[in-house]
């Protein structure tokens, strides 16, 4: 404590600043950042897979609670991870900015004076031929920067090594700016639509939507996307998908003339800085539910979620308008197969021989309870099962309270809509980072000095290569050779 008071707050601050911007600290922070990233690849992350996180909580409640306190499920947005990279970037800025100014100054200044004792340098030689004029011409031809003094020349080349180095590090800052802009002003959401339906880009059209901290809901682009056709192609032997092709009509803004477009997994739609991606697909069985008197109480396509590669899909059909209320837990199999082990399942992802398997429940659907409900799940806590049935296409089943008909199916697609105004900075930063890196790692920085010997009428030549880069020996030999020519 006494030391700090003696030094005073100001010098303490400058001491801390020197420590933070020292290369050793930067290196430790860099390695620390690498280690800090590891837990995020071990534990499930809320930002990627919230379901897995809740599974983890169910299977290891005690450990999960402890890990959650350490933010192990939100590693990359946690204060401890952020503080490492923020410190690293402060250290980087503190290191790079002064060096940038120095470099700019050095670029305009002349090379340093020729050292007194050249014999300490690399590849030192003394020759009794040549002259400073020849050396100067050679330096000029080989585009060295040099200063000529009365009896010596100091030349250097490879300034772009430091230029590249600085460009690389400044580009990293630009990438961080891009990431920051993206997370503050970005938007990301998902919407599942059946083929035939139209998606209008307003917040209520989304199943899930999240905005950056400084992005308000008003700034969504007012476009619309109508899914007109979806074709999935599969390998016959393995059932592995080989192509997904979604045909859409787009209007930007909504209501303007529609244009037909094709969306594939690797080719999203673009509306300014907003992109629309095809992320997943599945089937919605079309059903009609009637009451005892034959009145239609529900009709439409119900989105079912795929459970395996062959698109065995499950979902829930809720009919609140019947007395008592009726619900169905359904399973849609596009190509029906059955064995003793798995029961009914799908053996191929395309619809070849579809079935709709349902269990029928009556009672209270719980829609008025105020608790948010999943549209894919039936809350059976206040319900009673009254039947089970496997329906073929166009088949109806009378379950006493009414009937259900399996009318057909339609594919659905999951559109992911992302707005990231920061990514252009990240991209530019990346490009400059690579260019800077190449420049800095493949440029040799070196100096060569030529000096008239004090004792004899000869010339001393020597050089110094930064980071002992190879090639300087040959270069000096070339210069000596050039001078030797003057002998003839």
């Amino acid at each position, binding site marked *: 404590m006494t030391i700090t008071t003696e030094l005073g707050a100001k010098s303490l601050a400058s001491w801390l600043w020197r420590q933070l911007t020292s290369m050793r600290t930067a290196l430790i922070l860099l390695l620390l950042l690498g280690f800090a*990233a590891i837990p995020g690849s071990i534990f499930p992350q809320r930002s990627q897979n919230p379901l897995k996180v809740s599974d983890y909580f169910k299977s290891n409640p005690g450990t999960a609670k402890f890990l959650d306190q350490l933010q192990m499920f939100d590693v990359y947005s946690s204060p401890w991870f952020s503080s490492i990279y923020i410190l690293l970037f402060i250290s980087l800025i503190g290191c790079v900015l002064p060096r940038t100014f120095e470099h700019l100054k050095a670029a305009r200044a002349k090379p340093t004076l020729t050292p007194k004792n050249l014999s300490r340098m690399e590849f030192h030689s003394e020759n009794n031929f040549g002259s400073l004029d020849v050396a100067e011409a050679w330096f000029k031809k080989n585009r060295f920067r040099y200063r000529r003094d009365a009896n010596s020349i100091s030349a250097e080349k490879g300034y772009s090594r430091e230029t590249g180095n600085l460009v690389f590090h400044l580009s990293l800052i630009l990438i961080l700016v891009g990431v920051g802009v993206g997370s503050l002003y970005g938007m990301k959401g998902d919407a599942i639509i059946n083929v035939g339906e139209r998606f209008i880009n307003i917040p209520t059209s989304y199943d899930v939507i999240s905005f950056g901290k400084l992005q308000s809901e008003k700034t969504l682009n007012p476009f619309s996307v109508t899914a007109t056709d979806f074709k999935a192609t599969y390998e016959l032997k393995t059932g592995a*998908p080989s192509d997904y092709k979604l045909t859409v009509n787009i209007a930007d803004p909504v209501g303007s003339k529609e244009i037909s477009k094709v969306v594939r997994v690797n080719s999203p739609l673009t509306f300014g800085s907003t992109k629309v991606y095809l992320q997943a697909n599945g089937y919605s069985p079309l059903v009609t539910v009637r009451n005892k008197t034959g009145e239609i109480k529900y009709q439409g396509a119900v989105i079912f979620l795929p459970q395996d590669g062959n698109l065995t899909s499950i979902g829930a059909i809720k009919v609140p308008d019947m007395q008592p209320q009726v619900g169905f837990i359904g399973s849609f199999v596009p190509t029906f197969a059955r064995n003793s082990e798995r029961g009914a399942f799908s053996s191929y992802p395309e619809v070849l021989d579809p079935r709709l398997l349902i269990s029928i429940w009556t009672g209270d659907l719980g829609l008025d309870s105020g608790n948010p409900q999943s549209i894919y799940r039936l809350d059976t806590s206040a319900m009673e099962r009254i039947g089970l049935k496997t329906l073929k296409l166009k088949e109806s089943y009378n379950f006493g309270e009414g009937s259900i008909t399996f009318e057909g199916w339609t594919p659905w697609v999951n559109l992911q809509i992302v707005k990231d105004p920061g990514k252009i900075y990240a991209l530019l930063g990346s490009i400059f980072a690579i260019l800077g890196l190449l420049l800095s790692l493949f440029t040799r920085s070196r100096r060569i000095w030529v000096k008239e010997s004090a004792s004899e009428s000869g010339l001393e030549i020597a050089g110094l290569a930064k980071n002992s880069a190879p090639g300087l020996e040959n270069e000096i030999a070339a210069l000596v050779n050039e001078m030797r020519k003057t002998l003839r």
Partner: protein
Amino acid sequence: MTSTDYAYLSNYAIYSAMVLFTVAFLAHAVEVAFSVRNLEEKTQFDFSRTKRSGDIGTVMMVLAFIFLFAAVILRGISAHRVPWGNMYEFSITGALAFTGAYIFALWKYKIRWLGLPVAIAVLLTLGTAITLLYRPSAPLVPALKSTWLAIHVSAAIISGGVFLLANCIAATYLILDRYETKGGRPVWALKLPALEVLDQLTYRLVAFVFPLWTFAVIAGAIWAEAAWGRYWGWDPKETWAFITWVAYAAYLHARVTIGWRGRKAAWLCLFAGSTFLFNYVYVNVWGTGRHTYSGL
């Protein structure tokens, strides 16, 4: 010829390459073993006696490289795409990149002494690939259908091959360093270059390949933006690619800026290389995330 015929041809080329690597391995083993002479009760090394054997090793290595190259090309023809769709294909291409890096370094830096460990490493890689990782040649899932596959994966594989070579040299450094501090090199290591040369060579390889690895990560990010709607998402593969990048960046800084040489630098290099290997093996086989496709 049908796709299957091409796939079979590719497999035969792999087997042939493995035979050639085995011959190369034996030739290099003979080169080392039979150059030992006992002169006046002192063990000495005389490589002039076994120069021919070493030459055979080099020729076999080049031939094996050609066969491996053919195998990778044929695999691509059979699948009607770039041959980088699963771990088997990554491994054979990685072995090709590794052998290529060795042959290049051989021509440039005279490192024939590395022939023996290189042959062992390649045989292990190819052996694992053809027995454990083999998958029939098949088309790609939609997510992989992109020009970026060729760009991103080739850059990553070549980087991996060079990282592995740098690791071999760094490991050699550490072993020899240990012998030297204990009193001297064993007979078989007398021909190997000085420690400083190994240190410098490791650095050269890393400095050469670090921009390529940076490019591989960035190309992956650009592709992820097109396919998944975000350029960076801390997917396990991305996370470990980042860790590898950070580790090699630390190595370069430690060496260039702080001036680490020798032992410390070699350990850091080994650590960085092991993060790459971990990413390749662990994340592909046991990991979750979006880089796991169609079984391996």
